[in-house]
């Protein structure tokens, strides 16, 4: 069936709401408005205001309420309109959602799902263009996933709802219109493994979320330049599927990490560090990174484009690493 990333998530939401009465959706404008990215459009009519709950502008309160409801046996899906506003709920996320299970000696599990649109590229400037998913992955107790395909958009929610612990699903806003074929019986997918989206022998391009499409495109361009690149989609940023990444690098002996986060202290640094720690002697060249420039996102188009990862920057970095400047 032909569908979009947006529709795939909506279908996953409808599924969950239909098959599990403990599930409900809460967030700003998820109901009457239909979601600021139209993801939940129509769900209010289908499931009613009890289960599709519009919340006031109170990020900390409704995220915390989701945590409390999860502790009491519900399976809340809380949407934070965009990651840019998640900072207002960070205390609830780190000090409660991520800590309660441990603080209570295993009593208070928090089966909460947070859906958080993320990413830049739409010229909405410094306060509305954050890519913080890799940053959230620093927090023990959380599971952080980044669907980058229609299958994952359709399948990660169900698995996240089955997880007894808090799962943050970061949806890159640029992916919502992504269109493609999806199996009619597409369903739950695992959240444990990174996946090799494209096999290759010369270099491993490691990425996730919003930058997967451009990384695949870069791999094609590299092919033309005689570089056979493997593309690894991390899918889950916490806990990292180190094994798949390390095995890929051990095969290709070279790696470039593509990450929309600001470079310093990004998840790309963690991956680079782990590669060095585990397969150092397999490396034929230093691990390289293609990240966002360390700047609050500027509005002007040419500046924003220069700040973000791009096919050109990925290709250049990869060629540098394989040493083929042909």
């Amino acid at each position, binding site marked *: 069936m032909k569908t979009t990333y947006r529709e795939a998530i909506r279908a996953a939401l409808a599924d969950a709401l239909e098959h599990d009465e403990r599930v409900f959706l809460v967030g*700003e404008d998820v109901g*009457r*408005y239909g979601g600021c990215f139209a993801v939940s459009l129509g769900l209010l009519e289908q499931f009613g205001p009890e289960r599709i709950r*519009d919340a006031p*502008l109170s990020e900390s*309160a409704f995220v915390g309420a989701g945590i409390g409801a999860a502790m009491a046996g519900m399976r809340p899906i809380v949407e934070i309109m965009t990651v840019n*506003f998640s900072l207002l709920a960070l205390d609830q996320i780190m000090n409660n959602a991520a800590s309660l299970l441990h603080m209570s000696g295993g009593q208070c599990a928090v089966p909460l799902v947070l859906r958080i649109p993320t990413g830049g590229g739409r010229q*909405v400037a410094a306060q509305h263009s954050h890519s913080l998913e890799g940053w959230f992955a620093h927090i023990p107790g959380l599971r952080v996933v980044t669907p980058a395909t229609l299958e994952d958009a359709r399948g990660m929610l169900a698995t996240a709802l089955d997880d007894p612990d808090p799962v943050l699903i970061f949806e890159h806003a640029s992916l919502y219109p992504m269109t493609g074929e999806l199996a009619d019986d597409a369903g739950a997918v695992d959240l444990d493994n990174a996946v090799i989206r494209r096999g290759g022998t010369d270099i491993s391009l490691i990425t996730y979320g919003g930058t997967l499409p451009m990384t695949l495109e870069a791999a094609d361009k590299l092919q033309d330049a005689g570089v056979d690149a493997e593309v690894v989609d991390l899918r889950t940023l916490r806990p990292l599927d180190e094994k798949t990444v390390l095995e890929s690098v051990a095969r290709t002996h070279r790696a470039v990490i593509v990450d929309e986060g600001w470079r310093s202290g990004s998840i790309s640094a963690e991956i680079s560090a782990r590669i060095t720690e585990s397969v150092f002697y397999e490396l034929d060249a230093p691990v390289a990174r293609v990240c966002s420039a360390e*700047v609050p996102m500027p509005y002007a188009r040419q*500046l924003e484009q220069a700040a973000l990862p791009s096919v050109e920057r990925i290709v250049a970095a990869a060629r540098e690493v394989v040493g083929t400047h042909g």
Partner: protein
Amino acid sequence: MTTTVDATRMLDRDRGLDLLRQMTLIRRFEEKCVELYSSGTIRGFVHLYIGEEAIAAGAMRALTTEDAIVSTYREHGHALARGIPARAVMAEMFGKVEGCSGGRGGSMHLFDLDTRFYGGNAIVAGGLPLALGLALADSMKGRKAVTACFFGDGAVAEGEFHEALNLAALWGLPVLFLCENNLYAMGTALDRAQAQTDLALRASSYEMPAWSVDGMDVLAVEDATRAAAEAVRAGGGPHFLELRTYRFRAHSLYDPDRYRQKDEIRQWVQRDPLSALKERMQAEDRLTDDDVAAIEQDVTAEVADAVEYAKAGHEEPVTSLTRWVYSDDGARP
């Protein structure tokens, strides 16, 4: 209590013409923005102020150049009424170096320190704490300035609103809170967001003088703002005005506006602040058709000039992408 217009001042034709021109400029400027957005010249998020012009025009006329302004992402009207040249605002929408924020802010982040316009802020309620600090600095420096802080009804639900109003009242800071209550926060109606829908009452629970004003009546807005600002300036501590208004357009140029009744919109459009002022002035023989035509011509020329200026502006080279991340490269004031 709702303030009433002092009739004697209505007799002042210049005042009426000034306000009418200001509101018309904002209206035509934004209508042009819609065009330019459709043609892809202006990008990002654009939040129109159409229907709410009386607030910016009236409030700014009651403030002095010493006063400081903190605004939101729906701030074209505030910026223009504060006196930021239409050229600089339009160039910012184009993302040009000549823009009032050097092209780095865009529609949601108009800044101009010459007029003490401390920017559009795109985090709902995020500007309120900044306003406290500006006011605190002014009072510690012995300046008699007022910090006027604009925000919407939706911001009232945020924790920062509560923290800021409490702290402003507790410390007696010279802040004038200007709440533009247009009845909706995106698709969420006031009564679906607030347990206490009387926002002036909400504010007065912080022991701060607060009242509601007809935000469609530019004269009422100016008078109320002047009265409140004078009280703040005189050392009366923070004051709060709820300005009752309505946005005639969708939340942003992204928004299909599915959540409002066409009827409701129609009724409010009948209270268009521009028409209201015109009718009032005409009824009192203070406005001729030539006046209106002159204003329209004048404003249209100003907007056209702003667009030309913006078009002729320069794109910042990507080589200076990381400029202004730190002041080292010259920003130190």
